[in-house]
Structure formats: C-alpha cells, structure tokens
C-alpha cells in the first residue's frame, strides 16, 4: 500500500474520529458520509468518540493471515461504544480474561506492518477497563 493511504486514515484510526448525523442524532464509527435513514436530508459532522464501551461478542484468533501470524493468539471483539455504534477491534488482554459485557477503553497500538521493510501502521485497540 502507498503512504498516502495510511495518512488518509490517521484521523479515524489514531483518534477514533467518526461522524454524527445532526438531523437524526445518530453516531457513526466507522465514519459514514451518507446517513442511511436520512440520506440527502442528513447533516453529517465529524465527531471524536470518547473511546469507552462494552464487549458485545468476541473470539480468540489462532489462525491468521500472514500479517497477523506473529500476534496469534489474539482476542478480537465487536465493541459497542457508549455513543451507540459498534466496531470490530482487538482487545489487548489474555484470552481467559475476556467476556461478553466487559467494559473496555480505547488505546493507541501498532496494528501491523506492510512486510519486513514496509510501513508500520498504527491504530486503535481496546483494553479491559
């Protein structure tokens, strides 16, 4: 991947900046430019999420594609942010500690790298609160 592609993702990936539709007060993360219920009536603004939420479901990944094999086993979860939207993320914890309903908060972590000499990319993971 090219460097601009990583740069473009910095606001969302590093700072958990998503969007909010001011017409219907719905929050979006990952960000959406079109609010599905309002479509062209929607008024979309940037919104920085607080980074707190709870685990809705989870798994421990034992078998992963090349770019993640060094991290296995790792915990993957769907987290519901307190503002409402859900996202898929890694939970930085021991697999035995995770459970449905657990409170989590966002942390800044390395996500992966583009091969041995490629760009290292960072983003948001979560830890148990």
């Amino acid at each position: 991947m090219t460097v601009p592609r990583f740069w473009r993702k910095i606001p969302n990936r590093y700072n958990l900046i998503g969007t909010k539709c001011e017409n219907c007060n719905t929050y979006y993360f990952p960000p959406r430019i079109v609010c599905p219920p309002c479509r062209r009536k929607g008024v979309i603004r940037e919104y920085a999420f607080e980074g707190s939420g709870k685990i809705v479901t989870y798994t421990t990944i034992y078998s992963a594609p090349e770019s993640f094999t060094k991290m296995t086993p790792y915990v993957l979860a769907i987290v519901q942010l307190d503002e409402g939207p859900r996202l898929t993320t890694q939970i930085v914890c021991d697999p035995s500690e995770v459970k449905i309903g657990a409170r989590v908060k966002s942390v800044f972590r390395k996500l992966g790298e583009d091969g041995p000499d490629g760009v290292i990319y960072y983003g948001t993971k979560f830890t148990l609160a």
Partner: protein
Amino acid sequence: MREVAIVGIGCTKFGEMWDKSFRDLFIEAGLMALSDAEVSGAQIEALYGGNMSAGMFLEQEHIGALIADYSGLTTNNIPSTRVEAACASGGLALRSGIIAVASGYHDVVISAGIEKMTDVGAEKAMDALASAADREWEAEVGATFPGLYAMMARAHMHELGTTREQLAQVAVKNHYHGSMNPRAQFRNKITIDTVINSPLVADPLRLFDCSPITDGAAAVVLVPAERAKEFTDTPIYVKAAAQASDTISLHDRRSLTSIDATTIAADRAFKMARLQRSQIDVAEVHDCFTIAEIMAIEDLGFFEKGAGGPVTLAGDTAIGGKIPINTSGGLKACGHPVGATGIKQAVEIVEQLRGDAGKRQVDGAEVGLTHNVGGTGGTVVVHILAR
C-alpha cells in the same frame, strides 16, 4: 416475465485439483452441462460466470472474456459477464442468467461458477477470503473469516443456548452426506469427537467447523420454460430467484445471531413462488461454518430461532429426517470453491428433483431450495426450484 427452466447441469469433482487449471475446470463443467442439455455451442446466447477472486487467487481478471474464449464461444462473440458477490458469486450468476431469460433478452443462457483456490498457499487464500469482509474496518484490524463467524457462534451460544455438540453435529451430518457424493472433497465419516478435538481456528470454532479451501466449477443451462422440452424430458423449473443485501460489516448488523438478508431473501422467494416453507422437500444452505447452517435453517424459516442446534442433533436435517439439508455434503464436506458453490447447490437440487441423486436421494423430492451467502451476510441469494 417468462418462466425459466434448467435443462442441463454439470459439475466437476471438488477438491485440491493440483493437476487442473482454472480453464480446465470451467471447460469441464461447461461441457458436462451442454452435453446434459444436448445444446450446441452455436445455440448459446449469453454466459454469466460467478467468480469471487481470480484476481487474488490467480492474478487474473477479465474472467468473462477468458471463459468465453476458452469455451470456444468467442466465435459467436456472445456477451459474457463475470458477476461477483464474494461467496455468493455463483448464486448471483444463476440469478443473473435467470433474469436474462425471464426478461426475454436471451433464450439459451449458461450460468456457471468457478474458483481455483489452491494455486496460492493457505495464508494468502485466507487473506483473499478476508476481502469478502470490510477490508478497512474488519480485515485490517485482524478479523479473519472464521473469526467473524466465531463471533456469531459465541453470540448464538450466549443468547440462544446453542451447544458445542450441536455445532459439531452439523459437520458430522454433512460428512455423512458427503460420503455418498462422488463429487465431494471429503468422503470420510467423522464423529462429534473428531470436531471437538480438532485444532482451534477462532474460538469456539475449530478446524472441522470450517469449510475447506477447494478448487471446482459448476454450470447450468437455462432456457424459457416453453422451450424446455426441446432439450430434456426432465426440466426443472425456477419458481423464485431472490436476492437481498445488508451491511458489509458484521458489526453494523441489527443482529449477531441471525443473518437478516437470509430472512428477507427467503420471504421474497416464497412470495414469488407462492409456496410455503413446509412445501420444501430438500435444501442446500450455506454452511461455510457449522454455525452458519444452524442460523440458515432458522433464518430461512424452517425452524424457530434457537431450535437450529437441537433439531440438528436430533437428526431432523439428515437424509430421512424432516427436511434434509445439504445432501451434497454442503460446503463443509462437498467443498467450497467460493464462486462455484451457488451453482453447485443448484446442480445438487436439480439432481434431487430429477431423482438422479443415487444413494443420497430424498424420496419423492418435488420442491427444493438453495441459499447462498456472500461474506458474513452482506449478500444472500435464494432460489426455489421445482419439478
């Protein structure tokens, strides 16, 4: 709209076909379908090819032209179109062909599906499959396909009480069915212990909860129903071809224990066919993982929500049970060449309705259903076929 009939079917053996190329596979399936329908190449008016990811598996795009070319059909310069909806690419190719015939645009159409997955290693194949999810917000943070279905399995177990043994029984039953299918990748019978002692892939899913990496191709010949008898004595009629979409990401769905697009596509299909759930004699559903079959038989409306596991363990979905599911062995045992699966499902149902399914024949089967899912439920295609 005109009624459409399937008058020819073809399907290769599914498996790790190291001695066969992408081209070898679709030509084999296509020629089988043509000779089954006694159609000549000159009669074919259009071709739809379902393929998920030749780009990532083979670094080959422009599949429409390639399959027309090597099938010898460029001499007539017929329109040839690749369609893609991840693991539902085959189902979508079938629906596209049906629409082309139903609309009156074409009379004799081939719908095919093809995937050659073993030309890359397992890790590369996994990455290609992960492209059926949202690359930016699922795959790039570490989600794998088994991982996404594992999160659905976890939620289903937590909310509805589905058990580890019930999940395992889906694989046991499908291997039993596959043992009777000469095309199946796996023809060995397994036990619940085989599944629950296999290595963890994405907890709670283990290796034997997952469909394999497979090479294979399948094809069907479609014509208007009024011309069907020109080609065969046993036409199978298309009663419904329905499709629904939903969010690409699992985290954006209304539910983690249902695939809503399945329910919506099924409602549309049953309305179109003017049939009830109870009239389905046999069904091929999308069991890419064991949990997927349990959700499918619930979401299609064959069983109540939460009953999918218990009825599977009770044998209701095996041949001889209330509604035999995945008589081919399903994706689990017959194999899952992603772009070919939706067409293979139709081939299996046509064989069942013709009474040609051999040892795995469902007695007196008159109406059958196919259910093909793309990704974790972003696309679902449901067909109802009848004698």
